[in-house]
């Protein structure tokens, strides 16, 4: 099968859905000539013109607000919010408006709105351009939250997001655009709410996604080789809806849970997954305390040395696997 990048996979999804449905269009800052800050929409202006590949002013509240207004009146916008940090200037429109509208109106509207954004560290973008804020959105009823890692998942999930009649926060990672992987030529979509077991294992369950998934897999391989630990790696794919069942089943089998995410530990999605396990029947099978491998509780520092230290890496994950298995 051919191998492409996450960036190209995302673009394919957009193209296929724009070709499929003329109401799908893209709007955002610098997405036209420039093709978006990470290049996902490069070349689309030439293909679809400036109406459907619509550059907006630097007005994130109006960007999301107008995408929402369009979504409830017959269009299916994909709004690109350049950095997830900038959701902070559009939060009202995402959280108070888009997420709640259907419910507040007693079910009277569909809101087919995709908000594509990207977060995370690794490029020295510093504190205002490196956050991982998925936990905010997970905490807001009415939003779906998607975080792909591989090109295959990115494409299949984005197509599903575009066809979904609800607001979807589609969260990419800036370092992950260049991730490569196999993607079939044939059309496919990936359902929301079904976790993907990326690696089977029996000793410990490791939940990872986005930029950290390959690191998690690497750590799992290494621990298999070095310590004979068999790690099951699960990518939830979507945080909302969340596939509890798969993770509960896995932990019931392994008795040990490691969760990793780039977001700071306190209040990150790892806490929610841990709580779900702790309150489930998997509790009765637990053999070891939880291990969380997450961002340090600091704003993202600029210096490479400090940023690398503040972000989880393969070593940290491997250590956590060992700790979870009581291996010193």
């Amino acid at each position: 099968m051919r191998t492409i990048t996450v960036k190209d996979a995302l673009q394919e999804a957009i193209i296929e859905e724009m070709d499929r449905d003329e109401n799908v269009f893209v709007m955002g800052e610098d997405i036209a000539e420039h093709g978006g800050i990470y290049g996902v929409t490069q070349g689309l202006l030439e293909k679809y013109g400036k109406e459907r590949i619509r550059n907006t002013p630097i007005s994130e509240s109006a960007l999301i607000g107008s995408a929402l207004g369009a979504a409830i009146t017959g269009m299916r916008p994909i709004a690109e919010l350049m950095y997830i940090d900038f959701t902070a200037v559009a939060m009202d429109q995402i959280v108070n408006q888009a997420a709640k509208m259907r419910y507040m109106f007693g079910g009277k509207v569909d809101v087919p709105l995709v908000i594509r954004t990207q977060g995370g560290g690794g490029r020295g973008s510093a504190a205002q351009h490196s956050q991982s804020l998925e936990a905010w959105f997970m905490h807001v009823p009415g939003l779906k939250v998607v975080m792909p890692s591989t090109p295959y998942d990115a494409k299949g999930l984005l197509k599903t997001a575009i066809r979904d009649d609800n607001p979807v926060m589609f969260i990419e990672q800036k370092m992950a655009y260049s991730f490569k992987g196999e993607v079939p030529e044939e059309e496919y979509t990936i359902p929301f709410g079904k976790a993907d077991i990326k690696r089977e294992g029996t000793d410990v369950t490791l939940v990872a996604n986005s930029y950290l998934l390959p690191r998690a897999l690497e750590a799992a391989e290494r621990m298999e080789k070095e310590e004979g630990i068999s790690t099951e790696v699960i990518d939830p794919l979507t945080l909302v809806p969340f596939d509890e069942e798969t993770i509960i089943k896995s932990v019931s089998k392994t008795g040990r849970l490691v969760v990793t995410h780039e977001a700071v530990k306190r209040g990150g999605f790892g806490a929610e997954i841990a709580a779900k396990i702790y309150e489930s029947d998997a509790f009765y099978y637990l053999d070891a305390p939880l291990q969380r491998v997450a961002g340090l509780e600091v704003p993202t520092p600029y210096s490479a040395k400090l940023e690398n230290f503040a972000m989880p890496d393969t070593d940290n994950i491997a250590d956590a696997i060992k700790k979870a298995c009581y291996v010193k």
Partner: protein
Amino acid sequence: MDKSKDKLLEMYEKMKKIRLFEDNAIKLFNQGLVRGPMHVYTGEEAVAVGACSNLNDADYITSTHRGHGHCIAKGGKVDKMAAELLGRGTGYCKGKGGSMHIADPEIGILGANGIVAGGMGIAAGAGLSAKMRGTDQAAICFFGDGATNEGAFHEALNMAAIWDLPVVFVCENNLYGLTGPAEEMLSVKDVAARATSYDIPGVVVDGNDVLDVYEAVGEAVKRARQGGGPSLIEAKTYRLKGHFVGDPCVYRDDEEVEMWRKKEPIKRFKKHLIDNEGIDEEIIAEIDKNLEKELKAAVKFAKESPDPEIEVVFEDVFSD
């Protein structure tokens, strides 16, 4: 511009319906049947009615926390509205929205909004959608003087202006935010002056004169439908009641209220109809009577409607 007697009477009827709806809403509130903050439109009826009289069902409006008037002006049904105020299952939102979230997207009412200026981007988006779909639909975006100090106001107007979106921004300048006088909180005398920032028409109208509003908004809607882009219309008006029902109104004095009560738009329009349009007082009395009945029935409907079933709480988070 339709100024037939039928049209004028329809406008009168809507204004009066709003007034009666609010009178009843206050009563229901004082009976302890309405929860949360409720903001009534009493005294501002000419704005919503004058503006919406230029629209048809396919057009859009976005509304505010003070939304009952806009809803009725755009064709909303008072029975479902009353039921919503009472949180009943038969209400517009199945009792889940209440006063600040009444909506009827089927006739273009894209919702009241509890967030000041929260609907402005949405209105721009409805206009964008109309434009992209190639229809001649227009959108009216209602908001207050206080809302014009929100960033969302600025962003939406700029966006609508650069894309020539078919949106008419109608500011109800009733002299106050919640308690903040426009005089102190707004750095300009006329909100309409802010149109300069977007190179669009900015017009001041007498918000207590329904025909003045009707005409100015009519011009703007026409312009919008023809691809001429957005306008900003400032309707100078006054809310005769407090900001919310129960407001002690410590920030304004009785004389001011009295002064404005004299300029009250419904009596004024009624006088105009009789004096200048040759409309029989009895026809108006008949309308009033029918409205009284309609409102009575609406309140009865609301009161007799059951609370929503508990299961309803779980519905409508997502469409599936």
